[in-house]
Structure formats: structure tokens, C-alpha cells
């Protein structure tokens, strides 16, 4: 847009951040990105939570060596910034013959990170269930797995829902990091469109796409928090 006529500050702002022509041209790209982000997010949440739950259950079995390995896994993945792992795997692994696509790298890294956090949250939930519950259930003749599955986990999961929801949102938002390694998700599409169009409107559109995707879950997590308070006073 050339500045043939003088624009008021508001017009200039709208022209820069909400330009109808640019939005009309690039919204299909952002929509493509939204679908990629959505697919990655679903895959990460499902894998991360299931792996985390499995690790927490394995930890409840109480094999010393396994527990040390689980704690180390959870600690390391909670300590490292995900972007470090993404760069390491995407750029480092091809040199030793392991080539993973960009989306695959993001999926693997974020799933592992979510699994680490989910394991800790589930474990905190499991340990918060009173010991008497275990003993009572076992004494009625239930096996270990039955006690865990039918007695302990249903009570533990209720406590874990709010922190788990918040953590899952925070980690799935990190799919935006995929843009650094060229994964065609929302942010990548938005920055590409921004540099082609020379206008910031695609970024606004991208931000709106994230809001559309995540805001319902943020509100849901807030509701869960008031519904199941994590710690009773």
C-alpha cells in the first residue's frame, strides 16, 4: 500500500494490523496452519498423557531400578528447554543417520516433555490417596492392578485434572516452536505471509487462530480449577 493519501493514526493501525486485502489473500494459509497445529496438538496431548500415566503406574509398582530411571527421565525433561531438544534432534541426529521430519521432531519432543510433567502430576495424585485405601482394597481380594485401576486412580485423577489441563495447554502451545524448523503450523504460515505481504496482518490473524484454538481450553481449565481445588485448605 503506498501512502498516496494521508491516513489517520487509526486508519494506519488498521491498515497495518487488520488489512482486509492481506487477510483476504492469506487466511487460507493460516487455516492450513491451524489444521497442522491442531493435529500436532491432539497427537502430543494423547501420547504425552498416556505415556505419563503409564510411567506413574509403573512407578507405583515400586521396582527400584525402574523408579530411578523414571525420576531421571522426568527431571531431565522438566529441566531442559524444549527448543534445545528440538534443535538437537532436528539438526544433530541426521549426522548419525537418524533423519526425522520437522513435525515428527516437534511431536516426539513435546510428547516426551508432556509425559514427564504428566508422570509427576499423576504420581503426586497417586501418593495423595490415603494408604488405608490401598490396604482396604487389597484386603477385599483385589489385585495390585485392580486396586490401582479401580480404587486409587479414579480418586487420584480427580485431583490431577486442573494441573494436568494447565500443563497440557502450556506444552501444546509450544507447537509454535515448530516454526523454527519449518513446520507449516500457524506461526510459520503467519510469518511467511507477513514477509510476502510486507504487512503485519497475517500475524494478527495467526494470534487470533491461537486464541480460537486455545482460549476455550484455558477457560475450561479455569473452571476445572474452581471445581476441583488441588489442595484442600
Amino acid at each position: 500500500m503506498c501512502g498516496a493519501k494521508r491516513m489517520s493514526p487509526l486508519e494506519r493501525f488498521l491498515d497495518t494490523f487488520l488489512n482486509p486485502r492481506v487477510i483476504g489473500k492469506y487466511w487460507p494459509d493460516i487455516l492450513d496452519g491451524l489444521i497442522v497445529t491442531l493435529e500436532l496438538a491432539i497427537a502430543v496431548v494423547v501420547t504425552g498423557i498416556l505415556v505419563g500415566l503409564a510411567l506413574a503406574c509403573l512407578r507405583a509398582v515400586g521396582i527400584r531400578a525402574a523408579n530411578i530411571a523414571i525420576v531421571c527421565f522426568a527431571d531431565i525433561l522438566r529441566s531442559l528447554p524444549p527448543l534445545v531438544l528440538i534443535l538437537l534432534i532436528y539438526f544433530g541426529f541426521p549426522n548419525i543417520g537418524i533423519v526425522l521430519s520437522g513435525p515428527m521432531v516437534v511431536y516426539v519432543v513435546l510428547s516426551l516433555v508432556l509425559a514427564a510433567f504428566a508422570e509427576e502430576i499423576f504420581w503426586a495424585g497417586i501418593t495423595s490417596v490415603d494408604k488405608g485405601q490401598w490396604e482396604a482394597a487389597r484386603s477385599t481380594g483385589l489385585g495390585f492392578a485392580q486396586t490401582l485401576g479401580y480404587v486409587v486412580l479414579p480418586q487420584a485423577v480427580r485431583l490431577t485434572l486442573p494441573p494436568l489441563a494447565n500443563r497440557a495447554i502450556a506444552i501444546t502451545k509450544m507447537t509454535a516452536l515448530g516454526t523454527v524448523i519449518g513446520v507449516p503450523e500457524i506461526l510459520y504460515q503467519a510469518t511467511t505471509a507477513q514477509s510476502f505481504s510486507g504487512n503485519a496482518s497475517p500475524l494478527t490473524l495467526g494470534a487470533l487462530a491461537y486464541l480460537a484454538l486455545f482460549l476455550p481450553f484455558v477457560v475450561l481449565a479455569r473452571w476445572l480449577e474452581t471445581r476441583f481445588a488441588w489442595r484442600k485448605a
Partner: protein
Amino acid sequence: MNQILDQFLNFQVMGAAFPTLMAGLLTTAEICVVVILLGLAGGLGVALGSLHSSRWVRWPSIVLVDFFRAIPPLVLLIFVYSGLPFAGIRLSPFAAVVIAFLLNNSAYYGEVYRAGILSIGKGQFEAARSTGLTRAQTMLYVVLPQAVRNVLPDLLSNTVEVVKLTSLASVVSLGELLYAADMARSVTYNASPVVMAAAVYLVILWPLVRLVSRFERRLSL
């Protein structure tokens, strides 16, 4: 096996990259100090806002928090760094990082403080007010000290997240730890500098992560 060691634990490459990485670590430390302090202060403001008696303060605060919890921090950073120049606002990478993370962290710290303040019984407010303390004094001397103590593990765990978040600054070419490591990697065609950066993050953050887990276990008992 040798190839793996050569690619990921090449001490020669690590030695050469060491000074650059330490300079990067210093920048990371600078970002952390600024961003954590501003986030703690901003979060307190947001928390007080979201618990304000007037709904004209309360609702905007809550909407703002949810907005920034729904937007990925990298999107915010790129918007501030490469979107605002279109409106004539050109910021240095450092300023962009500070502004973007201030917005993001205030929302997250705010939620932590809020939970802490809500965990204090109403009786505390009433007792303090009836001794003649003003509302501000009650908050400052009675409620906040207890509230902060109650949510100390969450504050710490959020701070760990903030330190990890500073690695995003590499995307806007701010020369922090990860940026330095990735530069060294692209120059040497060897991933060892990134492994070294990972080790540095691990050395700094693992003890804190352990501490958080410990805290949480003690509180749940």
C-alpha cells in the same frame, strides 16, 4: 558409537565453543533477572486486579490473563519483534524479549499469586482490618506473606519455566545461551555445542526441579 561421540560429545569442538557459550550464559542470566523480577511484580498487580472488589477491574484482569495464557509466548515475541516495526515501533531484541515475556509471565505468576491469596481464610482479612490496619496494610503485612509462603513451590516451578523460556530469545537473534550454541553448531557442523548448552541448563535447573518436587511432596502430606 565413535561417530555418535564425535557428533555429540566432541570435546575439541566443545572447548572451542566454550567462551562463546559462557558469554551466552551471561546474557541468559541478564534476561532472567530482568524478566523474573518484572514478572513477579507484574503478576502481583494482575493478581490484585483479578481479585479486586470492582468488577470493572476484576473482569479485564481475568480476560487479560486468559488471553496471554492462550497465546504461545513465541507468537507474542515475534509479534512484538517483527510486527510492531510495521507500526513504526522498532525494538531491540532485548527490549522485545522483555516486553513479550513480561506480558506472558505476568499472566502466569498472577495466577499463582491469586491461588495463594485465595488460600488465606477470610477471617485473616477481617481480623487484620478490625485491628485498624488499612486494606493495603492488611494485604501487605498479613495476607501476602502467608499467601506467598503457601504457593512457594508454584512460584519456583513457574520461575523454572521462565528460565527455560528465555531460550526462545534465540529466535530473535538475541545472543543468549542457546543462540550461542546454535551458532557454534552451524559453524562447526557438529551438535556438541548444543549438547553442552543442554548440560548447562541441566546443571542450573535440575536442582530447582528437584526442590519443587520435594516441596510438593511435603505439602501434600
